[in-house]
């Protein structure tokens, strides 16, 4: 189960697109996984023959779980990613400071404490523990009495996760990602005044000759400008991982897009510095579905954002 987002801890298998015995090659979409952000297609990175499916449809498993096995892949039984990483390392050089541990997915302070009996009862009642706001047990833990009270208060259990978009789940995911970003990343702010008269005139000329579907929004120019700026300033393009900056050779700009059905995703415009030579329809094309190939939402090396709405 790949992590299809920085805050993803588990995913539910929705559909297997291959069956045991099928030949697969790197890049094939083999399985659809339901996450808080919607159903996402997951591709495979190895060639071979799918020999064994280990997780059936409908099961929710944590990130890192082996979903299937491939015969003919280098190293017969696919080892866990961590194991590969460890084995690939040369003999540990002494006196090198170990990288600090990754921040936990959920900081300890945020963990909801639930007694084992309460957790089991809630599962039997199909009651989401997140619906219980306050535990009355030891250290504020949710205990049986809290589950029973919540169950009698809210007789209708929330429907089980179904395929498609769960807006409240998406809201939760957005809120969690936004607060984490604000909390963990040092912020600083720069403002610059730019005379856009030339750009505006260019846009008007460009759009005047085009049918509506081919017209572009001014935001596309900012995306293009950002992409070109990143090419000149590569130290702004990439991410801090394990305490070190990992620059990206490609420039993929994430761009927040509202979904027609509500909610928000941030697909990346791949190779934005090259692909917006003639600005494509990045500005007004909207995903009609929430099912996206995983690289679409994951690979952004930089994020641009339009603040106009916030200032009104």
């Amino acid at each position, binding site marked *: 189960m790949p992590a299809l987002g920085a805050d993803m801890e588990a995913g539910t298998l929705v559909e297997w697109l291959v069956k045991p015995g099928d030949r697969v090659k790197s890049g094939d979409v083999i399985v659809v996984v339901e996450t808080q952000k919607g159903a996402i297609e997951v591709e495979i990175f190895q060639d071979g023959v799918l020999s064994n499916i280990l997780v059936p449809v409908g099961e929710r498993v944590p990130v890192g779980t082996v979903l299937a096995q491939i015969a003919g892949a280098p190293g017969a039984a696919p080892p866990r990613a961590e194991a590969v990483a460890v084995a690939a390392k040369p003999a540990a050089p002494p006196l090198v400071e170990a990288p600090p541990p990754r921040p936990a997915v959920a900081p300890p302070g945020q963990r909801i404490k639930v*007694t*084992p*009996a309460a957790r089991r009862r809630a599962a039997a009642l199909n009651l989401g523990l997140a619906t219980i706001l306050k535990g009355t047990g*030891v*250290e504020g833990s949710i205990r*049986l009495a809290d589950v029973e009270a919540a169950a009698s208060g809210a007789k209708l259990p929330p429907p089980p996760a179904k395929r498609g978009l769960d807006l409240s789940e998406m809201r939760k995911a957005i809120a969690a990602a936004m607060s984490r970003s604000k909390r963990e990343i040092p912020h600083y702010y720069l403002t610059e005044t730019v005379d856009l008269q030339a750009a505006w005139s260019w846009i008007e000329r460009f759009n005047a000759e085009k049918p509506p579907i081919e017209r572009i929004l001014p935001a596309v120019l900012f995306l293009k400008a950002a992409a070109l700026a990143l090419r000149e300033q590569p130290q702004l393009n990439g991410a801090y991982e394990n305490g070190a900056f990992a620059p990206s050779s490609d420039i993929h700009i994430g761009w927040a897009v509202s979904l027609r059905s509500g909610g928000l995703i941030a697909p990346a415009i791949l190779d934005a510095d090259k692909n917006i030579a003639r600005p494509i329809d990045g500005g007004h094309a909207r995903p009609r579905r929430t099912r996206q190939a995983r690289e679409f939402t994951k690979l952004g090396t930089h994020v641009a954002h339009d603040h106009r709405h916030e200032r009104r």
Partner: protein
Amino acid sequence: MTVNFSLLALDQILNNAVTIPHMSGGQFAIPLVIRMATGGGRHVAAQHSRSLEGWYAHIPGLRVLTPATVEDARFMLKGALADPNPVIIFEHVMLYNMEGDFPSDMKEVDIACAKVRRAGRDVSLITYGDSLFKALQAADALSSEGIDAEVIDLRTLRPLDTKTFLESVARTRRCVIIDEGWRSGSISAEIGMRIAEEALFELDAPLRRVCARETPIPYAAHLEDACLPQTETIITTARELVKPS
């Protein structure tokens, strides 16, 4: 003899009495019964106040009995004498002056089972020996606050009657173990672990223990009192599980 001085005989108890039936392939039975005084509370300082029954309960091949009531003190000896293997009876020093009646037709007690001495719904107090009476007092005090405590008298520390206290915890879902031994590596640690292993999903609160402070038992009365499990500590520990402040 108090348990404190049994250490001089530890080689005979552990290497000989316990081991010979095993090493002789059962050809030699060692039907030995040792009575030991155990526990603190008499202000007789560290060398006369230890509770080492948990230590002895570590040893396979021994039966370890801890009578607390008058009838157990009277009849456990009979059961121990009938056992073909070594048995140690730990008699708490603070209980020797206790008086009480038992049914005139009583002729024996079992030496294998724990007993529920007081039934309750909200929290299980698991204990043995002198601490049994502190736990019963605590249960009385708790009942005036609306907390209904169940009190389990273990009676035998080896073999441990796991079934009785697991069933109790499954009913009450909360548990305080009271043990006059030192906390680290104690019989209370063993009991807590068995609950964690076999009844985790029944629990509605963390496991809690009231044990002796980890120091040689002091001579001065107020310090000794502060080191040993006391009724008040049992009350506050149990209350905090049932009605967290």
